């Protein structure tokens, strides 16, 4: 599937801000099933300085700074890319989850070593006993890891209410668990946290969903905005994505921007500014399918 994506973020301030510095994770990652043909980042007013680099996980970071007083900032990310559906992960004959967890304890191969860092707690995801109890229902002894993860994805989708008013960016996972409500970021954090308490490696994926569903299919939650889901290390099957917000295994409707240990690593736009008085922000995302490749 080919997509044209336009992601516009607008800030406006009541007083001029003399300086601002920003870094953004808005460029789609190059992946086996995902090729980015074009990426453009437009910033107004024109930055005095800009550049890009790869972060620790290999995601592209664009950074820029504005040195002159400004009362607004518009960041427009435009990408043109093609996505193919990944091969479906074998569900029932995947490795038992304990075997995967064990391999991460004493990582021997470069793959398990690279995965092992996603077992550790991170900024938004501390260890929490409450979570492992919930998760264990899906992870019976010897359960195949992919099937168990998918069962957990399904249960979160069923047991948790999608409610943008229930949480904000800084709501701890623990509170999400107690409230049984949240948004995609919360569900991704929640499932990652559960898997990590079991000793599995799970990472946070930031990206988009296609805006208009294919004919006859329901419109998915999280279109018209940034979306988030997770990816789990499943041993020989490698990394498999799960979207607890929509109870699906992402395929060609999901576009991956970046991954990290949690939201803090891949926040779409980060910035520090001086002055500015009171301020507001609007976001719009348009994921426009251009047809099959």
């Amino acid at each position, binding site marked *: 599937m080919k997509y044209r994506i336009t992601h516009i973020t607008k*800030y406006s301030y009541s007083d001029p801000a003399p*300086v601002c510095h920003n870094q953004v994770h808005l460029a789609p990652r190059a992946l086996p099933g995902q090729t980015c043909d074009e990426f453009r980042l437009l910033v107004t007013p024109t930055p005095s300085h800009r550049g890009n680099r790869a972060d*620790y996980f290999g995601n592209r970071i664009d950074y820029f700074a504005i040195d002159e007083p400004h009362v607004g900032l518009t960041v427009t990310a435009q990408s043109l890319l093609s996505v193919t559906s990944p091969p479906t992960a074998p569900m029932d004959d995947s490795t038992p989850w304990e075997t995967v967890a064990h391999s991460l304890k004493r990582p*021997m191969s470069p793959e398990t*070593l690279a995965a092992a860092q996603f077992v550790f707690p991170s900024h938004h995801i501390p260890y929490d006993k409450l979570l492992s109890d919930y998760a264990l229902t899906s992870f019976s002894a010897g359960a195949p890891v992919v099937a168990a993860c998918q069962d957990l994805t399904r249960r979160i989708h069923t047991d948790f209410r999608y409610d943008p008013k229930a949480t904000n960016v800084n709501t701890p996972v623990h509170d999400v668990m107690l409230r049984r409500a949240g948004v995609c970021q919360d569900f991704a954090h929640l499932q990652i946290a559960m898997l990590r308490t079991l000793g599995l490696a799970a990472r946070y994926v930031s990206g988009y969903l296609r805006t208009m569903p294919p004919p006859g299919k329901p419109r998915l939650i999280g279109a018209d905005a940034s979306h988030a889901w997770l990816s789990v290390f499943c041993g020989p099957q490698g990394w498999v994505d799960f979207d607890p917000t929509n109870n699906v295994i992402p395929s060609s409707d999901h576009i991956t921007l970046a991954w990290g240990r949690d939201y803090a690593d891949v926040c779409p736009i980060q910035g520090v500014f*001086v002055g500015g008085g009171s301020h507001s922000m609007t976001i719009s995302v348009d994921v426009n399918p251009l047809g099959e490749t």
Partner: protein
Amino acid sequence: MSQSQSQSSSSPVSPAATNVRPSLLTSYASPTGTFDEARLPNGTLREPWNKLIRQLDQLGTNELIDRWATAERLVHENGIAYSAFGTPSEAARPWQLDPLPLLIREAEWQNVAAGLQQRAALLEALLADLFGPQTLLTNGVLPPDFVHLHPGFRLPYHRHKATSQNYLQCYAADLARATDGSWWVLGDRTEAPSGLGFALENRVVLSAMLPNIFRESHVQRLAPFFISLREALRSLAPKRKENPRIVMLSQGPGNRNYFEDAYLSRYLGYTLAEGADLSVRSNQVMLKTLGGLLPVEVLLRRPNSEDCDPLELNGFSQLGATGLLQAVRSRTVAVANAFGSGLAESPIVMAFLPRLCQALFGEDLKIPGVATWWCGEASSLTHVLANLGKLVIKPAFRQRGGERQLVKELQELPLEQLAERIKANPRHYVGQERITRSSIPRWDNGNVQTAFVALRAFAVYANGAHHVLPGGLARTFGSSESLELSLASGEGSKDTWILADKPVEHVTLLSPHKHALQLRRGGMDLPSRVADNVFWLGRLVERAEASARLLRTVVTRLTSETGSSTLVEMPLLIRALVDNGQIEPGFAVEGIKQQLPSFERSLPAMVQDASHPGSLRSILDEVFRVASKVRDRISIDSWRIMVRIDEAFRPPDQHCDLADLLTMINELLIDLAAFSGMVMESMTRTEVFRFLDLGRRLERAVQTVQLVNSCFVDSGKIPGELLEAILEIGDSLMTYRARYHADLQLAPVLDLLLTDDTNPRSLAFQLEAIEQHVISLPRYECQVGYSSEQRLAMTMLHTVRMADMEAISELYHLGNQEQLERILIDLDTKLPVLSNAISHRYLIHIGPSRQMNDIELHIE
């Protein structure tokens, strides 16, 4: 140095004398079970101590006490007491210096230094690997927990490409001697090691106190180390710039390291800056100065790594500069120590160091570290749990600043609870062997006591090698507990003497450079924040002087034999005190004569009332507070005067009467004059001087206008006594008498106070100086015509110059005060406007930075 001492030290010691036990250490009892620095187990003195104690004995205890008193005074005045705002009343030099140094012979020290060099190189290699290829993890030398559980491992520190910059320009280690006399490392400091300033200060004080003994002992000099440090930082500059701008990034006066920062930056010749003084523009770190933004090439960093860039790291910190990390990646600036270097100072590192040394260098550690077990390994956990009572339990990952409290908390837990705590989270704890530190004599006001000593040693990486400071900061403790725990038992500090066998070469930091410096004038580097503080220091010092002069005139009259109630000028002088804000307004009303007795009684207390904003005491508190913020900008002598002023102007005891007050005011005025003289004679005419003097002139103008206003407007008939009092306050009585003898009249008094531009106390003189300063302030090149500050200054000067004092006085005597009043009101309005205009143009900062993520951002 007394005559007898210098003679006897060169004369051969008679055989009889060697049998006499040196007296200084007679009362010193070396404890059993430790290595004693001074005595051998058989009770005789070790060799270097034998010589030192003999030399000290020749000086005699009394001479030593005298000299020590002088040295302590020096320590005190230099402002080693570095509490938050340098308030000496809360004097808080954390390490009381004592005159008995720690003595180490060169041969022994060379082994220690070699061990430290190896250790620094090892930690350097560790950091380069963990923030780079991480082969130590892939090879299984270190468990993944080592980095991924470490709060100091932040992703932005990671280097994709190997860069030439080392992590550890500065390295420090805490050392102690075990019972067999061998040295052990207790801990490493790699983030931003502190203590170097104290080591230097201790040396300066002690070598000044015992110059001959110091010289004869062949003590190795510290200066070469600091030359290496400067070279280390200079060579970091991007593109190897020859004369880079090096700035010490301090955590500011609120931090406990501030004294050191100020002391070291002055010694090394670097600008002392805080986060608010820096700004990253077009990927280049800039210092905000009066002359505009100036590029900074090297930062000597004191805040923790994570506090240095709110964009990529701790978003709430104001200690660094937004965009700093990217500037470092782009190599427009270098930071020492490199970001992330604090990772190596965690206790968990010590558990792996012997293995690391084998894995990386194929050798054993040359200087052992205290045995450490990381509870994340099963066998270590078992060992720690089995020996819980014998070990010190520490968090495996060090959070700089918070460790002491945590270790103490763990220490106080009952053993069962401690075991539970460790078992619940074994990977977060280490157990460490307890080290009994060596004992050493500590001098305490003529008595010698037993203390236990730890030594902080320093190394700097320059020209491809780690250079170890021949010396260090010796810290002494009343107990032999672990470093984190023994703070409460009282800390002291000592100079450390590395004793060479032959005389050492004298080196100074002033040694010639390879390349000649380009001559420079002026001080474009002055951060706006400093200019602001200096401006206010000028205003406050002048305010203190004006207040003290007015007060003295009042107190002199109250204590005169005439009796205050008969003095006709008294009501107006008291009104001036009220207008000046020095006392509560209650006293200004009619019938002051009845209130005089109570006024006299309560005046000393009112003057000392620090809670009343206009009182002389609170003005002096402000003076001191502001002065301590710019301590690095005023000379050491000027600072000493500041300390003196702050200390001397305090009531001698509970009962302070008017006579005491008068004495204190007189002394204060002399000190203030000394400060002004110091400023006039010693301060280079740079922007610092300009803003200081501008502040003074403005304040003096404000005070003069106010005084004339209080005494002459709405005051009825002017008695000659009042004129005399006003001349006295305005320090112009002598001039008046020389010109007009005893005949006191209004017109010449007003002329002398307001319009006589030859009198440095007159209003006209202040306005002329202000105009000159304002003209010379840095200006934007594109600006056309006069600035608003210039126009204001010129208008006021014109008003005063055009005022005809004879005509005004004549009208005044006829009952028409309007003309005088109009001029005074005009000036009274414009002076604050001028002050604000200067602040707006040069001094006001842009506000603190904010996170964009504070703006509600919701991902659906």
